[in-house]
């Protein structure tokens, strides 16, 4: 609990209209997309690194926890104020400070919404590729903190591949810069990379320098349907082996197709067992040629349908199939656990088979789709929490899914992070030495454990 004096000091830092303690605000800053809920004691909306620094200094002095928060779209509870404390919202820091068209870099504040940034750079013919499905509402700060990825990761990589430098307020209140604007730079430890994906536990990001690319000339979208998941997986490796790196290789398994079909009646062929949505981008002539090559390469792999979009509208139509997945899942069961494991891409069919066995053993529906190009699979365990015993079964099944991914040389999370949701499973993936190393970094930067305590590390 915060005492009146501390609240007054917080108010002095951010101004009365930027602090809230009413129960309505506490409720509304106590949830995220995990659907867990913990009420904070206060919510603050600072608008500069200086204010953030003062808040953290006060937190160290008065010993209260601070939880950084962007849009609260996280899937693992990273921004949730478990145990109470102060939620620090970055949405007032939402300026695009500059876009440097000579050096192809941009400097932004953390509260900028990802899509808003993309649209601004695209107006100048430039490109910021990271595209989490939450891009219309998640913030760039949240993206960096979670190292968000998206379907374009196959070709372009994830958020950290575009972060060149940061301004960060350390848990003690010190304001530092990491990295810079140069492509090369090897002085000191690479704190930029350390902070990308640190889930708001090592510092609060107050500025980001992003690398930009030229906007690709054009793109081509293809929807391909296979009679087996193996066929779809072999298509992925065949395309890449033949030196074509698509922008996107999204896949949906049979269970997913069944859901979508039942709800939206898209008229998929009877024999459809897996779908691959493929997109290539670049020079117009080149992508035309690539689309033809791709068709030829995957033809023998059990292809039962191949559709190419002629224009943007048709491309949108093909993407619709993928976008309808989420809304149709609820028909299976009302509650879902969305886990995002990664395996080497050639192992996708193996892991799907292992998951099918897990699903049979526990008798709960599991629906898989995701980014085949980088082996990142969204494993959706569909349950009804109101049925006694289902929740426990789900937790057991999740553990086995993680184990399957790890056995095949993968990881338990490709983009959603650990937060609160995956924390109990951490020892499956990291050994005691790794955890100790990470804990000493946290302890060195945050001696009083005031920044986002209780997250990520067990």
């Amino acid at each position, binding site marked *: 609990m915060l005492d009146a004096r501390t609240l007054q000091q917080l108010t002095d830092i951010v101004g009365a209209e930027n602090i*809230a303690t009413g129960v309505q605000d506490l409720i509304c800053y106590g949830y995220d997309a995990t659907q867990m809920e913990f009420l904070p004691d206060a919510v603050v909306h600072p608008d500069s690194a200086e204010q953030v620094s003062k808040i953290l200094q006060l937190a160290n002095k008065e010993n209260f926890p601070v939880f950084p928060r962007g849009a609260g779209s996280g899937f693992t509870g990273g921004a949730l104020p478990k145990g109470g404390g102060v939620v620090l919202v970055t949405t007032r820091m939402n300026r695009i400070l500059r876009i440097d068209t000579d050096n192809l870099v941009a400097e932004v504040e953390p509260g900028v919404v990802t899509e808003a940034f993309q649209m601004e750079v695209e107006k100048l013919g430039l490109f910021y590729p990271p595209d989490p499905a939450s891009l219309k509402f998640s913030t760039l700060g949240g993206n960096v903190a979670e190292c968000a990825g998206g379907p374009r990761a196959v070709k372009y990589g994830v958020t950290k591949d575009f972060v060149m430098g940061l301004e960060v307020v350390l848990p003690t209140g010190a304001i530092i810069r990491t990295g810079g604007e140069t492509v090369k730079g090897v002085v000191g430890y690479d704190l930029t990379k350390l902070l990308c994906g640190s889930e708001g536990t090592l510092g609060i990001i107050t500025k980001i320098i992003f690398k930009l690319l030229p906007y690709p000339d054009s793109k081509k979208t293809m929807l391909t349907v296979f009679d087996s998941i193996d066929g779809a997986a072999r298509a992925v490796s065949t395309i890449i082996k033949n030196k074509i790196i698509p922008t996107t290789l999204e896949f949906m398994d049979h269970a997913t197709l069944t859901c979508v079909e039942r709800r939206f009646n898209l008229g998929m062929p009877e024999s459809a067992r897996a779908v691959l949505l493929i997109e290539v981008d670049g020079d117009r002539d080149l992508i035309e040629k690539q689309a033809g090559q791709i068709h030829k390469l995957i033809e023998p792999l059990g292809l039962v349908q191949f559709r190419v979009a002629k224009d943007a509208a048709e491309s949108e139509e093909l993407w619709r199939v993928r976008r309808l997945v989420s809304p149709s899942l609820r028909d299976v069961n009302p509650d879902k656990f969305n886990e995002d494991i990664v395996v080497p891409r050639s192992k996708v069919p193996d892991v799907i088979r292992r998951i099918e066995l897990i699903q049979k053993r526990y008798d709960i529906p599991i629906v898989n789709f995701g980014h085949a190009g980088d082996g990142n699979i969204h494993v959706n365990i569909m349950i009804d929490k109101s049925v006694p015993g289902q929740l426990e079964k789900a937790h057991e099944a999740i553990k086995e899914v993680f184990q399957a991914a790890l056995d095949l040389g993968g990881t338990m999370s490709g983009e959603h992070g650990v937060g609160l949701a995956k924390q109990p499973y951490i020892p499956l993936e990291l050994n005691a030495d790794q955890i100790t190393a990470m804990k000493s970094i946290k302890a060195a930067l945050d001696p009083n454990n005031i920044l986002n305590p209780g997250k990520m590390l067990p």
Partner: protein
Amino acid sequence: MTKKHTDPLERVAQEMKKCVKCGACRANCPAFGTFQREPATARGKVALAQHLVKGDITLDDGTYSAMSKCLLCGSCVDKCPNQVPTDEIVIAAREALAQRRGLTTFHKAVGQVIKNRKLMNFGALAAAIFGPVFFRKVPSTSGLRLRFPMPFIGGSRHIPQIAKKPFMKRHPEIIKGEPGKPTIVFFVGCMTNFVYTEIGEATLALFRHLGCTVIIPQGQQCCGLPGMSGGDLETVRELAEQNLAAIEKHQADYVMTACATCGGALHKLYPLVIGKRNPELKARLQAVADKTVDAAVLLQKLGLHPEETGTGQRLRVTYHDPCHHRTAGIAKQPRTLLKETPGLDLVEMEGADRCCGLGGTFNVYHYESSLDINAGKSKAIIDTGADAVVTGCPGCIMQLSDGLKQAGDKTRVLHTVELLARKIRR
């Protein structure tokens, strides 16, 4: 005690469960856009409604304030991956709040607004502020009164002039057309009846041109939506019943509106919101809903030939989608009519389907924020360089005119039917 007041919310409790708190609704919510605080988002309002049902927060000022920050524009519902009907949930929350009106806090905030019979004093007040012409001829059940219910909306606001003679007083109840042609019941709506009578005239001219029989039921009242936005579901039910009776008196092929808001009420919200609370009315409301159609949609369906309507003068126009059209899937039809009309060049503005900021009574409680939303709209309109902005809702027309005038701009604001009727009415 608390139980009773959360009854309306319990009716939508199942719907609330569909919300997974993903935050997708942040992207399109105009209320969040202007307030920039989570309680203003759809997700926030759903969370608060859930806590109300659980009983761990009460219908106090804080809750009232959060629930008031909604334009009922429905864009969250359109974009929500789980189709959570936040607009319905907010209406239920406001009803719950309205039921507590006798208790001090809520009464203080909206007391005089919703139940118009208690607005006696206000009538005099408004008359004093807007001049004697305004409101004198407007009956107390009119949505206009609900739309301008507060004294503090004077100031710089541009209030439209009240018509000398209401539209319905100018015409007989039945205007016979050619045999074999459709019979249409015209649901006029307050704005058209009292303020923008030219919309009514244009609509009438177009359907007479097509040979239709047009019936203007005399017993029709305000659709009641401004009351719905204030949570006064009792008044809305009364008005719905009166409107139902007036419409049912006539045999018609269509019930037609030239006001997106009225269309939204008849077509969707009556059966959904009033029907849910009054099962005995439900089938009748649904029957009218099934016949309800927007003027532009009906004109297209009946085969209005745009070349008969074009005047030959070149005009650059842009189209604004009223929320109650967007949520009903009406977007193509008016645009097609405009595109096909000789002399008209249609240019799209940025965010044509974004709310203008009127939002029922939202613009009264949150005038500054409403202006803020409206300013974005005005900019988008001005950026197109169009001579006129065209839309299908008199409420939007009022709001867009206000915004453009405040921005010092001279772009005209017209209803689709007005443009289409230009030649016919000569």
